[in-house]
C-alpha cells in the first residue's frame, strides 16, 4: 500500500503567496496530523483532525489552516506565506478508534522555502 503521500515534494514560494500542501492516506485512519520540522526544534504539531469534519489546533497553528472533508485527505493551506514558514512539513495519520494513542505513520515530507 502507498500509506501516506504528500505533494509537492518541494516548493519555492514567494512571500505573500498562498499555497496548499496536499496529504492523502489510504489506511482509513481516522486521525491525521500536520507537523513542521525545523533544525534544532524537532517536530512541532501544527493542526490535527480526529475524524472527518473536525480539526484542532496544535502547538504552532498561526498562519496555517486545514480542512478534513473526508477520511483520506488533509490539506494544509498557507494563506499568505512568510519566510518563517520555511520548513519541512510532514503529514501523519493514526488509528484512534481504540481510544488510545497508536502508532503514527508519516509521509515523506514537503520541503517548503519561502523567499
Amino acid at each position: 500500500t502507498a500509506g501516506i503521500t504528500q505533494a509537492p515534494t518541494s516548493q519555492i514560494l514567494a512571500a505573500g503567496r498562498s499555497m496548499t500542501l496536499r496529504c492523502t492516506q489510504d489506511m482509513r485512519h481516522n486521525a491525521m496530523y500536520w507537523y513542521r520540522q525545523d533544525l534544532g526544534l524537532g517536530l512541532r504539531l501544527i493542526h490535527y483532525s480526529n475524524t472527518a469534519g473536525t480539526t484542532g489546533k496544535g502547538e504552532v497553528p498561526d498562519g496555517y489552516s486545514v480542512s478534513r472533508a473526508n477520511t483520506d485527505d488533509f490539506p494544509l493551506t498557507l494563506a499568505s506565506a512568510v519566510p518563517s514558514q520555511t520548513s519541512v512539513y510532514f503529514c501523519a495519520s493514526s488509528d484512534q478508534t481504540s481510544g488510545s494513542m497508536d502508532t503514527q505513520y508519516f509521509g515523506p515530507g514537503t520541503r517548503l522555502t519561502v523567499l
Partner: protein
Amino acid sequence: AQSVTQPDIHITVSEGASLELRCNYSYGATPYLFWYVQSPGQGLQLLLKYFSGDTLVQGIKGFEAEFKRSQSSFNLRKPSVHWSDAAEYFCAPFAGSGGGADGLTFGKGTHLIIQP
C-alpha cells in the same frame, strides 16, 4: 508543564559498538512512549512503543528501550550498531486523554553518527 528531553544533540559511535540514547520526560502520569527514527531525507518510522506491561520493549532493527518509572526515562539501546543506523532519533511521549488525537510531543532529536 509536560516536556520531553533528549539530552544528547549528537552522539558518535563506532560501528559494532553499543549505543544508548537518552530520553527523559516530565508528565503528571505515565505517558505512552514512542521512539521514531528518521533517515536522511526521509519521513519518520516507528522503532518501538511502550503502553504498559513489560518495561523492556523490543523494536525493529535490533533496538530495545527500557521504561523506568522512577527515573522518568525511556532510553533506547542497541548492542551493536551498524553504519545504516546513522540517522536522527526522536523520543515522543503522548499523554492525551482517551481518544484524544492531539498529536505527539517530540523531543528535539539525537543525531547519531557512526564511525567506521
